[in-house]
């Protein structure tokens, strides 16, 4: 089943909702495609799909993941090619069904078929630890754990890491799912004032290597609203740069990590210190 030119299956997961899984899936998918990789992003949030909106493809959805699983449509019919990047594809979720419509065999079949066609398969997990989330991570080689620097998000991420180590196919074979931590919605000045968990504390609690730190930015919201991944919509903005670096680290490049700091001066002048 596994041929030599097989894709890397990545799950973007978090446990907690609203931390930036879908935004990060779209941004990283677009960044990897921009770097020349052939990418498909899959929305596993059956019933509450969002990835189509963030990708700006909501008016082109005909068939979805559930249709493919149930044999109503063939995989190529359901894949939506991005208008901006021709090697970026979306497999949308169904909005009218719920997670019970996902079957383990069905997901396995879809992933296996995509593996031979793409370099990267990025699965956007729904929040929670139920069926949708466990099936999104089921066949992952690599996991990106999206965490906000606050205690509830970090504890939920810890829970998800436990599931990645027990409920995935790799874990059941006795192998490890390669795990990376992506800290999103990082406020440099709040961190400097001790109002949120420091990156070091998050890393100490979760003990998973850091893939990137995405600063909180209006650019992210603006990009979502116009239906474009931030890495395409404003590629030189601080969050897009951070996503591009994360994408290159994911590819195996070594890029020094820097903690975003408030460089515009006003906060540094006010509080007289930089983010740790």
């Amino acid at each position, binding site marked *: 089943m596994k041929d030599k030119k097989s894709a890397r299956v990545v799950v973007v997961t978090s446990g907690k909702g609203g931390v930036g899984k879908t935004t990060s899936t779209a941004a990283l998918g677009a960044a990897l495609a921009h770097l020349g990789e052939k990418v498909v992003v899959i929305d596993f949030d059956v019933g509450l799909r969002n990835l189509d909106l963030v990708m700006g493809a909501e008016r082109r959805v005909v068939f979805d993941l559930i249709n493919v699983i149930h044999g109503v449509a063939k995989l190529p019919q359901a894949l939506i090619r991005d208008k901006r990047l021709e090697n970026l594809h979306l497999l949308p979720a169904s909005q009218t069904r719920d997670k019970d419509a996902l079957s383990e065999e069905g997901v396995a079949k879809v992933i296996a078929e995509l593996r031979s066609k793409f370099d990267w398969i990025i699965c956007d997990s729904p929040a929670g630890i139920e069926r949708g989330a466990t099936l999104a991570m089921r066949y992952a080689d690599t996991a990106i754990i999206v965490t906000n620097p606050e205690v509830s998000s970090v504890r*939920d991420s810890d829970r998800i890491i436990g599931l990645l180590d027990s409920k995935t196919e790799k874990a059941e074979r006795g192998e490890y799912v390669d795990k990376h931590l992506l800290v999103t919605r990082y406020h440099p000045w709040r961190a400097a004032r001790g109002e949120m968990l420091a990156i070091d504390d998050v890393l100490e609690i979760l003990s998973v290597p850091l893939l990137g730190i995405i600063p909180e930015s209006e650019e992210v919201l603006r990009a979502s609203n116009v239906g474009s991944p931030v890495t395409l919509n404003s590629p030189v903005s601080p969050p897009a740069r951070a996503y591009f670096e994360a994408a290159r680290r994911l590819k195996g490049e070594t890029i020094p990590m820097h903690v975003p700091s408030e460089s515009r001066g006003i906060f540094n002048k006010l509080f007289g210190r930089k983010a740790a």
Partner: protein
Amino acid sequence: MSDLIIQRQSLKFRARTYTAFVFTPRAPIADWLMDLDATLERSKSFFTGHAVALDLSAVRLSPNGIAHLVASLEERNIRVLGIEGVEPIEAAGLPPILRGGRGTQDPDLPEPEPAPATEGAPRGREQPASLLIEEPVRSGQSVAFVEGDVTVLGSVGSGAEIIAGGSIHIYGTLRGQAMAGVTGNRRARIFCHRFEAELLAIGSYYKTADEIDDSVRSGPIQAWLDGNTLKISAMN
């Protein structure tokens, strides 16, 4: 108990011994339930998810009374695994009758009945009674090892629990719950390199984070039983 192995075609049944919390209600049951509520008030989910057996030898209850008691416990999220100390009752829907229960006061656990039908299963006696965990224990995970000590090289996350018949050693940060000596070993201790725990228990004595002095937080500690008091001290 060795004759409990029933073979029917290829289906095999084995007898096995487990460890459970035992409740021994006393009359009047209403007062006993109030005492239980007072305990639960301090830690609502303490018994949730754990096996609980009901020893009714100290009270005389009708089948209806037993059903009512079991329902009252279920209302408190305590599910009764089985009942002992009563004559066989023919009321439907009640947990099964348990026999052959043994106290676990001595630090040496009663050995699980060796199951003669299992081939190549290691005999408990030949194994050192300790469990080593090299990975972090994540939120939501539960490690239970009633046979002896548990050593964790990583951290124990918030919302994770370690349950040991013997002592617990944690070389990372303890943010979750640690319950040592759960089978009655009063000499069991808890050691951790950095203490941020939600709950500590030794035997049937426990302290929640609220009841623990802040001065021992964030440092190395050990916890032990001094009489009926759970003591925690910094280790430097």
